[in-house]
């Protein structure tokens, strides 16, 4: 990651969008930052934490987004500028707090919420646009169109937030968050920050502080007043601009990363003098006057934005409220089908939409070339499905789970959750995961299933959850299982890391975001204190793990916990050498024959196990193999051998 603390105002640095946001927060004099790891937002807190000590700020990985948001609000209540960052799912988790926070208002410290959406859900369980929450709960919302804006907007929002007295939201997407661009730096503040929680001691005041949403209707009225003030600020914002002719054949209304795609599209089609681009940076409250002033530029308006028709609908709503004499262009966008209403956008899709609307033909490449390219890709590019790393303990855990469920024979199954182990819905985890929703969802669903005995249900239920997910959202579900006596087994995959998002620490790892050693919250001690029966296994000991699960399934009787403890291989591999040298004895390997049918390369699927088609035998890829040795226990012929390295 780049150093976001460079003291060189006016110079240009190459920052990814997340680093630019973090830098913007630093330039605003932030004191407090909290987040839960979530792609594509993680580098915001990550980069702040890496410079926290030298900048005198506090940055933490909170146990979940709700606590992160609440903690940041707490800092704001005590007069410290605070930032909370999260991916789209985090917005769902903080929504109840936000619904009350907009009513209560914030403290003297500005409060900024950064939400990073993941169009196409490339690294997510769901594709979701978080901008509607701004409309839903009345939160002023901006969306940066490039890396410079990411920094500049973040800095600006802190001033606005303090002036108007409410939190402000910045929405980003993957291609801004994780792409890099030039950012001209501003000054870094040198002022002291002092925290104090103000309470009114004047007996005439009904309430000693204002950090409460009551009385709500009155607070709601105040909130609308704040939104009006925000709208006025947005009307004059330089983040909203128009580039194009006074009279255009087509007016593109866009925001965020789509501004870059729209510019690319117009340039490629060479329509700069025919197509105008109205870019909005401040999205809600809608800068209505600004929008109205540009509507007359064309009879045709195309909305280009990521995921939901948020801007599209806001503007169509606004236009509907205008007198009948106002311009009524034809609107194109997600509603009309010219722009995808799902999946990530790109310049090609915008080119297609423009061409469609203006009746142009555009051939991006020769059709014959296209076919050739596709055929070449098919024959030369191997199929790659999502997998676990070589040496990943989850592969071993799911192997044991698969076998235990089959041996048990009652059609048991796994309710899954969010993390690397979500991949077990596919071949890498032997298709074991059968349900998946949100953080902590697996144990919740298991609770319901575990109470269906009275309806004849007797299938064993395993709720599989990661270590970070356990601390995030699963503890209440476990308590429910013990209290309401639901019959399921909570399998906690303790690989000592929040791995999927980049190995961030969590309460079980004994390390904070700022690199300080801290108390370990022992998951087995916690579970035992809740009254659950707890067993700890090493997933690499397949036999013991399988037997433990079988015994637990046979036991029945209320929620139990099995902790599968073994370090993430990528974390271990950085610190230690491979424990074993693993090889295939080609004499013993029977490959495709009866008695094997390529179990290791067809079913077990460790990427370090490769099939030598010519020889008809399996082989270890020495470059990929991490020497974990688990495959030696898989081979039915004992043809895989390990030697202590």
């Amino acid at each position, binding site marked *: 990651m780049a150093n976001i603390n460079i003291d060189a105002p006016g110079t240009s640095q190459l920052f990814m969008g997340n680093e630019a946001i973090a830098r913007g927060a630093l330039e605003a004099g932030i004191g407090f930052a909290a987040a839960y790891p979530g792609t594509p937002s993680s580098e915001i807190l990550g980069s702040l934490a890496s410079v926290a000590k030298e900048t005198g700020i506090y940055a933490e990985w909170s146990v979940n987004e709700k606590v992160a948001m609440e903690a940041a609000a707490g800092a704001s209540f005590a007069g410290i500028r605070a930032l909370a960052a999260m991916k789209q799912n985090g917005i769902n988790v903080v929504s109840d707090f936000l619904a009350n926070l907009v009513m209560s208002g914030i403290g003297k410290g500005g409060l900024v919420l950064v939400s990073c959406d993941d169009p196409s859900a490339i690294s997510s369980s769901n594709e979701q646009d978080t901008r509607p929450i701004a409309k839903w709960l009345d939160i002023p919302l901006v969306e940066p169109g490039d890396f410079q804006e990411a920094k500049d907007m973040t800095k600006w929002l802190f001033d606005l937030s303090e002036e108007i007295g409410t939190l402000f939201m910045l929405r980003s997407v993957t291609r801004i968050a994780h792409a890099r661009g030039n950012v001209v730096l501003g000054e870094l503040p040198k002022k002291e920050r002092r925290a104090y929680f103000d309470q009114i001691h004047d007996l005439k005041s009904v309430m000693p502080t204002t950090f409460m949403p009551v009385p709500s209707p009155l607070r709601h009225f105040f909130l609308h007043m704040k939104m009006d003030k925000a709208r006025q600020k947005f009307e004059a914002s330089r983040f909203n601009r128009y580039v194009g002719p006074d009279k255009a054949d087509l007016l593109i209304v866009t925001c965020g990363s789509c501004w870059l795609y729209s510019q690319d599209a117009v340039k490629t089609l060479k329509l700069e003098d025919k197509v105008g681009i109205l870019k909005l940076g401040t999205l809600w409250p809608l800068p209505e006057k600004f929008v109205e002033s540009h509507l007359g530029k064309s009879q045709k308006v195309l909305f280009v934005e990521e995921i939901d028709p948020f801007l599209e609908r806001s503007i169509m709503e606004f236009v509907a409220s205008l007198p009948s004499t106002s311009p009524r262009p034809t609107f194109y966008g997600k509603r009309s089908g010219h722009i995808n209403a799902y999946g990530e956008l790109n310049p090609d899709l915008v080119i297609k939409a423009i061409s469609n609307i203006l009746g142009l033909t555009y051939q991006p490449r020769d059709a014959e070339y296209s076919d050739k390219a596709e055929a070449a890709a098919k024959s030369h590019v191997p199929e790659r499905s999502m997998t676990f790393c070589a040496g990943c303990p989850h592969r071993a855990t799911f192997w044991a789970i698969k076998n235990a469920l089959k041996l048990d024979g009652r059609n048991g199954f796994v309710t899954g959750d969010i993390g690397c182990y979500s991949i077990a819905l596919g071949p890498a985890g032997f298709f074991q995961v059968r349900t998946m929703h949100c953080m902590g969802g697996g144990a919740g669903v298991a609770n319901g299933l575990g109470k269906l005995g009275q309806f004849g249900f007797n299938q064993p239920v395993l709720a599989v959850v990661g270590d970070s997910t356990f601390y995030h959202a699963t503890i209440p579900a476990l308590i429910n299982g013990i209290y309401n006596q639901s019959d399921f087994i909570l399998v906690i995959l303790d690989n000592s890391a929040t791995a999927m998002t980049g190995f961030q620490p969590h309460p079980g790892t004994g390390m904070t975001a700022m690199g300080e050693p801290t108390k370990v919250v022992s998951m087995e001690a916690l579970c035992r204190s809740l009254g659950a029966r707890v067993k700890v296994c090493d997933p690499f000991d397949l036999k013991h793990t399988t037997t433990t699960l079988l015994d637990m399934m046979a036991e029945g009787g209320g929620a139990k916990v099995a902790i599968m403890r073994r370090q993430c291989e990528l974390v271990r591999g950085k610190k230690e050498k491979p424990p074993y040298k693993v090889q295939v004895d080609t004499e013993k390997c029977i490959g495709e024959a009866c*008695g094997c049918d390529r179990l290791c390369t067809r079913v077990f699927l460790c990427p370090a196990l490769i099939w030598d088609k010519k020889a008809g035998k399996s082989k270890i890829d020495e470059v990929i193999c991490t020497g974990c040795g688990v495959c030696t226990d898989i081979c039915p012929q004992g043809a895989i051998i390990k030697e202590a390295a």
Partner: protein
Amino acid sequence: MVAVAKGCKEIITDVIDAGLCALCGACTGNCPYLVYYKGRIALLDNCTLSDGLCYKYCPRTYVDMDAISQQVFGVPYSEEEIGIAREALMARTTDTRIREEAQYGGVVTTLLSLALAEGLIDKVVLTKTSDDKTASPVLAQSEKEVLQCAGSNYMACPVLSAYNQIPKNDVSKLGIVGVPCQVLAVTKMKKDPPINRATISNVKLVIGLFCTWALSPDKFHRFLREKLDLSKVKKFDIPPPPANRFDVYTTSGEISLPLDEIRKFTMPTCAYCLDMTSEFADISVGSVEGIEGWNTVIIRTTVGAELMKAAKAKKKLETDKLPSGNLTHLKEAALLKKKRALKEIIQRSGDENNLIYVGLSPEFVKKLQD
């Protein structure tokens, strides 16, 4: 019906899910997909092979009775009720140690000990009963280990998995003791030798046991556990009719359970079995009705005859003529089992000419039914 090449998918659909599995173990032990666990065969993953040894050797997939009889005896399948028998006699061990552990006459244990001592075999695939009275397959290599396997356990046990697990380059000479379905599976292997496991021609001796039916290892064992303290049980016995009892010998005395209560735990597949006396073994061994402490022994092959000769010569076994009444009764019982099985098979298939897995000519079947 003809033999069709099929794999583990069909083992599951045609045999296991169809309630025909005898838990003989012929499909487990050298396969990572089919695994025995607590009274059933579980499928851990999908094998893509369409021609599997599991299906080939399963005693409940098509078996051409004439062909396998040719394999062992050089003649077509015999019409004799107790199969091809060079000699039927009664015998008992002369060894007092064996007598203590034996179910009846200790003949199996004695013959195995002799075979080991003579070097006819190096190892034996046997069923061992643990202290908790569950049965597991073992590969015994000494007289002591063989003796530990003495005594009847009436529950099905996948014994053949112990043969399947022997590495392919192993040259040990093997003995196998099994019930009729297991002997049938081994005979199928002899007819069409398996690859990637110990060569079937290493199997030098097959001793078959008499069997009317076997009990379900998980259901019956659970029933026993609930009724008895299994740690105190020394021996089980089912005395011949008209006794109608299941006897349990414990350290604190004898308990009898009504056989009718036990019958509900018989494996469903046993209803379709035609073989009461292990017709394809080298030697078949069972009890002698009404004569305690002796075994009925049927000698079928040269291997069997020579082993018996050696046993007599070395005075390991005491032999006597089998009373004609016993032989008659044995044949009647064997024939009754064949008739009953055919009736059940035809009722199940709904077609006289569909014998599910048994390859017999319609003429043969007609003769049996008369």
